């Protein structure tokens, strides 16, 4: 009897989503999550570092340096203004050199990180600028070193912006992974395009979209929870 129910269910999914290969779908989901997680992690580290560098080298700040500030700012602006799909194409030689191939999830990572880190660095910078100047002055008046100010003042005091920023960035990265799929990185975007759109299987596109939306909702929820927890203002 139990067998019977299962069969009924299977037939039901088969009836509504006749073209969906579930094994393939979960594989694609895994690839999307893999690419999003790794690229978010590296974007977080690199974006944070660039954001801090931009903040500290700004005029009247601790490492005030016009040249470094200008160069970093320019690089950030250049990479931020290149449309992602073009960035992928521009990076093909680079990716080939490093990974020997432009296919697969790992090959998508450089483009994802280089595309997202400057965007995130700007958000970090906004968060750092919102820190009360008086608090930094207070830390200086206590004899704090710049490294102490970075770790114990700048990062904790801008933590809500840092976490809400990485949440927005990770959601953007989910979208980027779908685009990266087009050049053969795999993932749900790739599946939806190749198996859904090109073979005219709207059910595949629909299921892939629903899973992507679910991933985005989950990321937003995690991000909001962390942001609310660190924000003691």
């Amino acid at each position, binding site marked *: 009897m139990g067998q019977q129910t299962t069969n009924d269910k299977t037939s039901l999914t088969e009836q509504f989503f006749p073209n969906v290969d579930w094994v393939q779908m979960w594989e694609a989901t895994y690839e999307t999550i893999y690419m999003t997680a790794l690229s978010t992690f590296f974007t977080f580290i690199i974006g944070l570092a660039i954001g801090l560098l931009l903040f500290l080298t700004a005029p009247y700040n601790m490492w005030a340096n016009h040249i470094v500030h200008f160069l970093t700012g320019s690089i950030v602006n250049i990479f931020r203004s290149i449309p992602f799909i073009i960035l992928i194409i521009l990076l093909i030689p680079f990716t080939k050199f490093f990974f020997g191939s432009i296919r697969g999830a790992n090959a998508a990572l450089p483009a994802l990180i280089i595309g997202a880190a400057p965007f995130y660095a700007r958000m970090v910078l906004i968060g750092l600028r919102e820190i*009360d100047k*008086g*608090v930094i*002055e*207070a*830390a*200086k*008046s*206590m*004899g*704090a*070193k710049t490294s*102490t100010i970075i770790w*114990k*003042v700048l990062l*904790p*005091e801008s*933590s809500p912006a840092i976490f809400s920023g990485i949440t927005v960035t990770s959601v953007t990265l989910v979208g980027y992974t779908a685009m990266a799929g087009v050049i053969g990185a795999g993932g749900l975007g790739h599946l939806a395009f190749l198996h859904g759109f090109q073979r005219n299987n709207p059910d595949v596109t629909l299921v892939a979209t629903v899973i992507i939306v679910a991933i985005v909702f989950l990321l937003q929820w995690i991000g909001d929870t962390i942001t609310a927890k*660190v924000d*003691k*203002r």
Partner: protein
Amino acid sequence: MISIKELRKEFTVNDKKIVAVDNLTLDIEKGEIFGVIGYSGAGKSTFIRLLNGLEQPTSGEVFVNDKKFSHMKGESLRIARQKVSMIFQHFNLLWSRTVEENIEFPLEIAGVPKKERKQRVHHLIELVGLKGREKSYPSQLSGGQKQRVGIARALANEPDVLLGDEATSALDPETTDAILDLLVDINERLGITIVLITHEMHVIQKICHRVAVMEDGKIVETGKVLDVFQNPQETITKRFVSQLTGVEDTLPTLETIFQHYPNGSLIQLTFVGQTTEEPVLTELIRNFQVTASVVHGNMNQTKDGPYGTLIVHIDGETKQIHDALQYLQSIDVKAEVLNNGSTNNE
């Protein structure tokens, strides 16, 4: 303790040179509470930041505890700063840290071991009266409580000097008094030298031993608080003093009085110390053929004793009024004639 020699600080804003502190020379004694009063833009904030090296002077020198703070740099400046701490108008607490973590912060900077940190924080929380609020975040505290955290934090590394940058300007009058009491308590118990900058005469009157009046980057008048109150020399000092005695507020009232009493004189009496306790008016009426009615009165307590202002209307024969005034001078009450009644009566 603090020795300031020909200190000068210039800023260049939009290609225009601004002199914030101009050739300032001053000595502050160990263990005293020294107040610097001035309106905004007088250069007070720059001045106090020159004392702990947050600003470096264009020229001149600052010595704190025989250490030359001006032109000190890097590691030595950072270590020296631990003994010259600062409290702020807007408290400048880290919102991401609890009360005890905020107080612990300077100890972390100084590299104090964790166990000793906890002990000192515990002691400091008791000292400033914040027991029970250790785990609260700044956002859960009132302004007065925040400043108590600020004070505890400033005291953590057992400083020699405490700098107050408009420390009570963001607080209501009652909380201001409580914080000022705490500062006096700290000054007396721990012997810390306190330098305060403020625009409120009330702060100077309540806790300072000596005061300097600052205008356009210069100190225009300095001395013991009671002396400056009794005998202000400069126009700006007189304005600050009248802000406290309330005489300024009374001036419109005086206009009405002039009209109501065309005869006699309005006299402002200033009492200091001992004379505030003597029955001056009674003596005046008994010994001279004059009538006296009180128009305005005010009494303030300074660190060195009471200080009072009284505006009285005295009427009688010109000779008697004259003698009465002479009598007042003889008992060290400063008498200032505000008007001489209507001229057509003389």
